[in-house]
Every structure is written in C-alpha cells, then in structure tokens.
C-alpha cells in the first residue's frame, strides 16, 4: 500500500494536480508515526510512511493547509473522511484546495496496548490473520490481534469513504458495530457507580491537552480553554473538579459534531476512555432525534442545531435524570 501511495503522490505532484502532500513520517520508534507534509518526490522517497501503526487522522491539519497557496494531496482512511466532511460542513476546510485519495484500512495497531502486555523493545509488527507477530529486541512475540488493535478500530463504524476524489482499492460499507456496548454498560450502572467510574478515569488526566489538540471537532480559532474571558481558561490540574469539568465541557462542545473518529482516546497518554463521553452523546442524539452520523455528508443539519416539531421536549432531561 505504501508503495502505491507514494507513486500516486509522485504522479499527482508531477502533473501539477497538487503542490504538496500530507502523509506521515516515522519518529524515533517504529510505532511513532506522525503527520508530515512532503513537497517533492525525493522527500516522499525518504520519509513517507504508511503501515499498521499509521493511525493519525490528518483531516484537522487541512484547516491550515487548505488555506495555503496551491492544492494539497491527502490520504484519508474511511474514518478520516467523516472528520473531513464535518470540517467542510463547518466551513473550516477549503475543499477546492484539497485532493483526496481514499485509502482502505483494516484497523491499526496500538503500541500502548501491546506494551501493556509486557512486550517492550518493539522493532516491527506483522499482522497474520487473527494474530500479530511482534519483533522485539528480545525476540519474537505473538499475540491475538484484538489485544494489539486500537479500540477505535475494534469498534469501527464504517469502511466507507464518504468523500474522495479517487480511491486506492475497493470502497467498503458502513458497519453495524458494537460501539455503544460500553456506553450501555455505563448507563446501567447506578449513579454512584458511574460517578466513581468517571472520577477514577478523569482524575488520571494530566491536562496535557492532547485530546483537544488532536480532535478534528476542536478546531476553534480560539479555544475556550485558552480564552481568559471564558472563565474556564487553562488552569493547572490542581482541582479535580476543574479536571472533570474540562472533559465535560469538551464533550458538550463537540456534541453533534463529533464523528467518533476515536483520536482522543488514541492519543491520551493516560489511557482515559474519552471516546465514551462522546459516544454517550451520539447514542442519545440517535435515540432522541433519530439516527445521525456527523460527517456523513456536508449538508444535513445536526439535530442539535436544528429544530423540528418531532423533537423531544426539554422535560426529557428530568425524565432521564431520575434513576
């Protein structure tokens, strides 16, 4: 796949369709794959990476990149296309300045998860059916794929590209995933249990802002947490309440716009399952206002910025609030 992508990129650079390419490059470790911009065939040959550790969603980078001179090529996995569309809907990306090549994805590996199984010194990872063979400094380890795959990929919602200029490979289908199972479990807890669950998760937060920085929905010119006038400006993680509020405010801000790309949980260094907050919103929106997938298209109106006579009455808050 990596080869096919490089030659596609070279061809598009050569015929002048694009002037830049946003892809990924490797950092210090094999699993450190981060977005990067390439401007020539040579740069591509030297650094362009696409492998099982290439999970980062590049959509958000296009807010800035699409405002620069010339057209940029981006490679979008199915989940990334939802984020891209949502940003188009919000007028954040200039569509004309982006050339999209859709690429398939059958799930990405999670180095943190592999490490949590006691496997260190990772040199490479090879997928083989339901297992993953990890080559390490200390020899070869094999583990079940489910133990090595990112949560967001295990509960993948769609293998379909909702926007692209061309595709490499075949397009897939929307998947009937089990992504709300854990939310349901949380819903079935008592209020105290749930409070405990979130307390213990959110108290781990070190307020590194990684979730906000990676989130394609968190694309405000000036984030409320950076705005001295908002009253919730960035503060040291001194008070646990402050921390809990941070994630709840963020979940509210992205509600109805979050496409469930799963990046927040992927980048959280403390492994907080942040996606569950967003999924709770998505699940509620689906049940209260009818099925809605943010980013599925660029024109439909999010139920939260729409009103129709079938909408639930505000008293639902009270009804749901009673245990």
């Amino acid at each position, binding site marked *: 796949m990596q080869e096919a992508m490089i030659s596609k990129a070279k061809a598009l650079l050569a015929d002048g369709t694009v002037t830049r390419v946003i892809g990924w490059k490797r950092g210090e470790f094999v699993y450190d794959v981060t977005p990067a911009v390439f401007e020539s065939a040579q740069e591509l040959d030297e650094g362009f990476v696409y492998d099982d550790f290439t999970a980062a969603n590049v959509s958000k980078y296009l807010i800035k990149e699409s*405002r620069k001179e010339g057209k940029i090529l981006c490679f979008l996995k199915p989940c990334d296309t939802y984020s891209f569309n949502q940003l188009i*809907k*919000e*007028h*954040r990306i200039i569509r004309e300045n982006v050339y999209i090549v859709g690429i398939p994805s059958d799930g990405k590996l999670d180095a943190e998860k592999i490490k949590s199984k006691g496997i260190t010194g990772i040199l490479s990872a090879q997928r083989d059916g339901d297992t993953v063979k990890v080559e390490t400094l200390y020899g070869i380890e094999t583990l079940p794929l489910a133990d090595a795959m990112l949560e967001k990929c295990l509960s993948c919602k769609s293998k379909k590209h909702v926007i692209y200029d061309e595709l490499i490979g075949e397009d897939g289908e929307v998947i009937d995933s089990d992504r709300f199972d854990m939310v349901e479990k949380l819903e079935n807890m008592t209020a105290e249990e749930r409070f405990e669950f979130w307390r213990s998760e959110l108290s781990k937060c070190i307020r590194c802002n990684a979730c906000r920085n990676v989130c394609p929905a968190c*694309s*405000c*010119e*000036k*984030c*409320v947490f950076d*705005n001295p*006038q*908002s*009253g919730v400006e960035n503060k040291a993680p001194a008070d646990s309440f402050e921390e809990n509020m941070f994630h709840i405010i963020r979940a509210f*801000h*992205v509600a109805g*716009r979050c496409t469930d790309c799963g990046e927040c949980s992927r980048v959280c260094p403390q492994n907080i399952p942040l996606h569950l907050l967003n999924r709770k919103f998505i699940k509620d929106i689906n049940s209260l206002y009818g099925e809605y997938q943010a980013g599925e298209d660029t024109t439909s*109106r*999010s139920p*939260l*910025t*729409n*009103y129709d*006579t079938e909408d639930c009455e505000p008293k639902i808050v009270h009804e749901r609030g009673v245990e």
Partner: protein
Amino acid sequence: MQRIGVFVCHCGTNIAATVDVKAVAEALSHEPGVVVSQDYQYMCSESGQNLVKDAIKEHKLTGIVICSCSPRMHENTFRKAAAAAGLNPYLVEIANVREQCSWIHKDIATATDKAVILGKAAVAKVHLNAPLTSMESPVVKRALVIGGGIAGIQTALDIAEAGFDVDIVEKQPTIGGKMAQIDKTFPTLDCAACILTPKMVEAAQNEKIHIHSFSEVTDVKGFVGNFTVTIKKKARYVDETKCTGCGLCTEKCPMKKVPNEFNMGLDNRTAIYIPFAQAVPKVATIDPNYCLMMKTGKCGVCSKMCSVGAIDYKQQDQLIEEKYGAIVVATGFNPIKLDKFDEFAYSHSPDVVTSLELERLMNAAGPNGGTLLRPSDKKHPHTIVFVQCVGSRCDDEKGKPYCSKICCMYTAKHAMLIREKYPDTEVYVFYIDVRTPGKNFDEFYRRAVEQYNVHYIKGMVGKVTPKSDGQLDVQASDLLANEQLHINADMVVLAAAIEPDKTARPLATMLTTQMDTNDFFTEAHPKLRPVESATAGIFLSGACQGPKDIPETVAQASAAAAKAIGLLCKNSITCNPCVAQSDELMCNGCSSCEKVCPYGAITYTDKEFRMPDRTTAIRRVASVNPAVCQGCGACTVACPSGAMDLKGFSNSQIMAEVDAICK
C-alpha cells in the same frame, strides 16, 4: 467604581407577606458596590419611581437593581424611570422576587433567603451591564391575517377600514369558517348566513383586502414590523382569475359521490365543487383525489363545459412571498373527533350526530333543505336527546380538561329551535351543569326550559345502544331524582368539545409564539394583554386563543385589529438593543449560529485578519444584523468558540449571576 442602588418592593402584601423586605434591603446593602438599599410599598407607583429617580441623582448611581415582580411586568417602567433620571435604561436589573419567590413559597425564612440570593445575582449582573442604545427599524404597512373565519374577516375589515392593506390566508376554498356552517345564532336567533355573508362580500369587495383562499402559510421570517411570509397557494386546478363561479361544471361533473365536508359528510358533492352558494371567493376547486380526469386521464367534462376556459388540470402549487408589519392569527377551532367515545355509539349509528352536524341538518342550505330528518331513514324524529360536555371538562386523555364554553348555549338554541318548529318532538338535555353567563344568555336558556318545555336533566348519559327497530336506547342517570332512565330516542346529539385547529401548532412554531398545553395560542398577559401574543407584532383573534362564541370572537377580532393598526400607524419602531454580536477574532465561521437563528439575522463575510503569528489570513466570520436580531440568545449557546455574545445578557453576566447564586 460602581455605585449601585437596590430597591426592594413590597408589592402591597404580594411580596412583603412572605419575604422580609427590610431584611432583604439590609442584606443587599452589604453587597460590593451597593451604596443605597431601600424598600418601599409600591415601587412602581409614582412616588416609588420618584424614590428611585431621586436616589439615582442623589447618589450618582451607575446601576440599579429593583427587587420586584417579573421583568415582563415592570422592567419597562423602571427603565423609563432610570432614563428620566439620566441613567441609561439598560443599567437597570430586575430581581424577580414575586413570581419566582414570594408567590411560590410559604415559609418566610426560606423566601427571604431566596430573595436575598436573587438580589445578589442581580447585583452581580448589573456590575457588568453596559449602557446600550436602541436603534429604529421601519414598519411595513401591511397586515397578514391567518384564518378567514368570522374572527379573521372582522380583523381584516377593521384594518382595511383604517386604510392599511391586509391579506387573508384561508386554507379552505372559501372564507367564512365555522359560522358559515351554523344555522341560526344565539342569543338572538338570527340566521348566521344573513349576518355573515354580507361581511364576506364586504371583505371580497374591499380593495384593501386580498384574500388568498385555499392557501397556507409555509414560512415566516423576520420580526415585528418586518415579517417575510411565504404563502403556498395550493393548486385548485381552476384559474381563479377566469372562473366566474357560474357552477355549470359542478352540475355536469360525473363524479358525484364525494363526501361533502361543508355538510359534515352528511351528503355528497361533485369532484369539482364550490363549497356553498355564498362562498367567497366564488371559485370552483377540483378535488384531485376524486377527479376522474386526474385519476384516469379520461373525462374532462368540466373543461368542456367551462365557457371561460378556467379549468387547468396541470396547475401547480404556487409559492408567493410577501412582507408584513403585523400578523394576526385567527385559525379558529374544530370539534374534537369522537372515536374515543364509543359509549355514545357515534360510529355505530347515523342517528347519533354532533351538534355541528345538527346545524347542517337544520340548515335551509343543508342536506335536507332545512327539514329536520333522521339521517338513517329520513323520517321525522319525535324524541331527541342532547348530551352536553362530550369530551369537555374531562379528566382523562379521551377529552379536554377545559369547558368548551359555547355548548350550553348552542344546545339550548338547538332545543328551542326544534321545539319551536316541531312541537310534537320531545327534547331532553343531559347536563353536568348549565353555564350561561353573558348578556341575555341565562334568559335565553330559561326560555328553553320555561317557555319551550325542554326537559333539562342533570346527569350524564352512560350508554347509547342502537336497537333492532332503528331506535336508540339512551341509558342515563337523573342525579336530582336519583333514578336511572331509559329513553327511547330517534336521535342523539353530542355537544363535542372544541379544540384548536391541528395546523395551529406548526404555525406557532413558525411564528415563534407560545401555546398552552391544549394548543390554544397564549396571550401576552391573561388580563392586560389578551389579544397580543408574547411575540411582538403577532396578535390573536377569535377561538384560536380559547373557546369563544361569536360576540366574543368579534370583540377580540376588533381588539386585535386595533393593536395591529396601532403598530402599522408607526413609521418605525424602537428595536431592542439587547442583540447578539460576534467577536470576529474568535469566530470560526462555522455557521452553527446561523443555523439556529430563528430570525435569519446572521450572515457571513470573508475578511482579512492579522493573525497572532504575524501572518494575514482570510477568514469567514459571522455578523449579526442588529435590526433583525431579536436577542433570543440561541446563537450564543450554539457557538462553540464563545465568539457570539448577547448584549445585556452576556456569557460573563450570566456566569456572574450563577456564581453569585452558588456562593
């Protein structure tokens, strides 16, 4: 440094009986910035206002907090007082310690605590108030009346009389509403047609009045003085401008088996029809569900008959857009469906009818030409039982909790008319109690009992059973005689409860007006502003606001017209300066605000900005048209970045209030 004055009102005993007003004034005097804190018996009275004005001057106040009734009641009063004393009116805050405190609490200690907290919140807010100046916005000198019943007609006539253009949008092919279906009217028993049809003609002939019949309002944008309304003129497949209403087509149409809704389905009409002889406009309409030409492509008789070539089977719905300064809602009512009242056998026997059906059965233009005949065998009925309150004053969800108000009177009317015309007919009326307040109303009812010997029986009918001989067995209880009755009746007439038209709710949404739980439109104040809605520029006329008879409907219709005229007379109106504003530096241009703005006040421009990293960037940013914005605040909540803020209700002001309350 802020210098804030606090004024706590007793409202007679309304507040003072449950709130220790002196303690509130004392407590608030220690709040930051408060330099004077006083209480007074009636702050809204002239001397109360003078107290406020004097304090503003004497203490050089920079802001005032009035702890009193709801701001909807007297905010304006105190704003004016402040302005008169040289303080910007938007530096006034009201702490509602009446509706939200004294009226809903019993315990003095708790109510006093709460009043203090509400006062503190208002003080915290007024610290952040900024002086605001109002703008003016022009008034379009044209009114829209939605619904062409007697209410809509009267309102339109009055507005036109004052010299303004007025459009009536009526969803039926003709104006007239329910009154056109009624036979004679209480309390004077004059014939409805004789008093209504001249008004319909007057409306049609008045050059200031434009009737859009068979039309609906599909979209409303804008605000008081400047509404933009989209009206859908539904295809009637007849060119209104050509049709002369000669009616030849309706005679020749071969499709004669269409239930006639004007006669409540008691007889049939043709597929092309004019609802009744005095219809306005007198224009034919084709019912596409029955028209043979439209269903099978074979027929075209009407088109051949029509000498002016008015028939157009290909006509399409047409959307027109028009601007109005004022809108009057007059969508009226309908009797409820009786499918949940199986005990009265309405669905099982044609001889069980509703009162409105009886109006048609008795009407000279009705299915029997005015002779009262039983629907089943067209025989003269000798025993008729009336059942009142069918679905009215009902405590389960089968019916309505309210009294429909008109049924006692029209039932007395029906009973009397029948006894007058057919003295050999026995008439029974079962009632819970008879409610006939109103000028000459009780006299009217007593005439039915005393002069016409109508048998009024206090009690409810339990069951109506159709018998094999065609008669109806009416099983009822006489509560005064304490006995069970069986009456062998020829006909049963049900006084069905009335409810607002089903289109009223979506219309209320379009108009952003309020309704009560029964879908009647809510007036701005139940006593003092009965014909205005809470939305500026939208007025209420007739039964859409609550059950009403014709005299009341007409009175309200003229009152609504007077209010609309008052508005249309102005060249411009002062706008509310508490409008939204977006901070361009923070705006993402995401369109969230534009999507939620019910008034279409928000537009976007691409602007060049110097960015913090010293580059320049073209960014899409929101801007609010202050003349269109109504200050509802929907956008400020939708805005993810906090760029949108509402003057007078800024995010920081609201947070300050919340903080003060939680402290």
